[in-house]
């Protein structure tokens, strides 16, 4: 039952990331994955909120559904490297490097913010 909920939450998380990517592309048409970078930061922020802020009010099962499921689906490691690799292949090496370096930094900031807000 828990795996089913995690699965559904993961699908919903992916949809939210897709929505963020759509919104970024609508606002600023680009092939660069800035929507993915933003989704990763938001996902890390929510994960920290759940771990630090909602840990006591949520059962372990629901915590897993939100962190492993929703936040896991919202964030992506594969696109954070695959899309820059394709960009680097098509001579946009600087952009690729900026994205690869920026993503973990904004994730750290997102996670730290989430923890700070919770405390």
């Amino acid at each position, binding site marked *: 039952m828990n*795996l089913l909920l*995690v*699965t*559904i*939450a*993961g*699908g*919903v*998380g*992916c*949809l939210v*990331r*897709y929505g963020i*990517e759509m919104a970024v*592309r609508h606002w600023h048409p680009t*092939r660069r994955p800035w929507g993915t970078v933003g989704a*990763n930061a938001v*996902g*890390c922020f*929510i*994960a*920290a909120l759940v*771990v630090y802020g909602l840990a006591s009010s949520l059962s372990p099962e629901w915590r897993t559904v939100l*962190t*492993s*499921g929703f*936040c*896991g*689906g*919202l*964030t*992506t*490691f*594969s*696109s*954070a*490297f*695959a*899309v*820059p*690799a*394709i960009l*680097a*292949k098509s001579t946009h090496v600087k952009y690729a490097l900026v994205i*690869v370096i920026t*993503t*973990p930094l904004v*994730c*750290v900031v997102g*996670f730290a913010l989430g*923890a700070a807000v919770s405390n």
Partner: protein
Amino acid sequence: MNKATSPVATEQLRAIGAVFVGGAIGTCLRAFLLSHVAVHSVQTACQSVRCSAGPWADFVPWTLLAINAIGVYGATRLLAGPLRDRGFFDQWRLLSITGFFGGLTSYSSLFMALDVMRHVYPLGAIVTGLTALLSGATAAWLAIRSVR
């Protein structure tokens, strides 16, 4: 024609369905691997590493590191190969890259694992984080090379 049944709306529904199904399958596979492989096979296989590296190796999310690296390799290989000329909104790209590999791999789970580790072994958390980034970059590079 009713807006709800227009081709654009149908296309958007198919896109949403592709992302959801791919993401759900990827997340389910990750959750299954993390709850089963992490507990049994990987920790047993890493017994020798733990002995030589010390107890901090217990906190390293080995399975997640492997899943993330494999996910980067698979996604890059697809994007550089069969999906090379497909746009962002292509159904197969949404199903596989945005959905499946997006759900399979996770940045937040990595940060949660590193957060647990940094309370006990701060240096180990930094080394593990850098290793994760290096493994992702290496996997992408290997995938690009394999398609050439």
